């Protein structure tokens, strides 16, 4: 048997999806998984780093703005620049944006509400390590839970993301239609998740770790985790 993939889940002060993510990787997917502390400077030899959801540093200043400067993030930035796999979920996505590993920024949700609900997202590109087991156009039912998920990028950045196929997930209806009604938080172009130009860094607002077992209402999040395992 080939070596299993080693995952690392980062804990920042205020992370609150760290153990859910750890549980899914370790117990549901049976992969060796390590917890990485924000003050650490050692990634423990992991193959994929996951930045979990939560409210790192209380979301003070801007969501993700303080976590970006933590010691572990300096290592993760180097790891990502060398092609290492990095997945940012919700607050993890916000940290990736603040750290410049992904392009764009988050604004407060258009209706100013904290949104905690199941949404549907459509897979726009499956030629990434995070979506290769999904089909283009496939609709995933995955919950969101955020205040600042209103994705924004200036027009020229947006054009480049589109041209390079870096828009990976978009909010849609249950039938996969992209419209304003499905765009719960007001994101430009219904964007729910993007990757970097080389495809090894992905950020998304929905929580795939909360949709990894049938008892929780959806297993659609597994499409993302199993895609990562599939490259191994």
């Amino acid at each position, binding site marked *: 048997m080939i070596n299993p993939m080693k995952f690392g889940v980062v804990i920042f002060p205020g992370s609150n999806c760290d153990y859910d993510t750890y549980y899914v990787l370790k117990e549901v997917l049976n992969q060796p998984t390590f917890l990485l502390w924000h003050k650490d400077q050692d990634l423990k030899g992991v193959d994929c780093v996951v930045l979990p959801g939560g409210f790192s540093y209380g979301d003070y200043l801007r969501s993700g703005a303080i976590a970006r400067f933590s010691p572990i993030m300096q290592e993760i930035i180097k790891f990502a620049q060398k092609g290492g796999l990095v997945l940012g979920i919700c607050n993890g996505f916000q940290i990736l944006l603040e750290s410049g590993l992904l392009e764009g*920024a988050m604004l407060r949700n258009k209706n100013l509400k904290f949104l905690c609900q199941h949404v549907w997202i459509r897979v726009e590109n499956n030629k990434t390590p995070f979506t290769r087991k999904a089909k283009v156009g496939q609709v995933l039912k995955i919950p969101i839970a955020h205040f600042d998920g209103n994705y924004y990028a200036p027009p020229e950045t947006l054009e480049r993301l589109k041209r390079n196929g870096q828009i990976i997930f978009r909010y849609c209806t249950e039938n996969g239609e992209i419209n304003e009604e499905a765009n719960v938080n007001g994101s430009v172009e219904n964007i729910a998740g993007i990757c970097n130009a080389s495809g090894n860094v992905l950020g998304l607002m929905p929580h795939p770790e909360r949709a990894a077992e049938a008892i929780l209402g959806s297993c659609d999040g597994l499409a993302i985790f199993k895609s990562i395992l599939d490259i191994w």
Partner: protein
Amino acid sequence: MKIRVLVSLKNGVLDPQGQTVRHILHVLGYHQIKDVRQGKVFEIELENIDRETASRLIPEIADRVLANPIIETFSWDFLD
């Protein structure tokens, strides 16, 4: 030495909080209010630094930390 840094959303960037404040002002009858943009204020105290060096330092920390240059701009002033 005291400095005040004002961070605001760039023109063209949606400001749902500012829009909500404008809305409630209209509801209260203040129809002269054309637009509201919400921002952040930082009052910063410095020591062991001259004004010239501070004038270089403040834009650096505003650009690096206080504001996100993708969505925000900043201005600043000495308070003393």
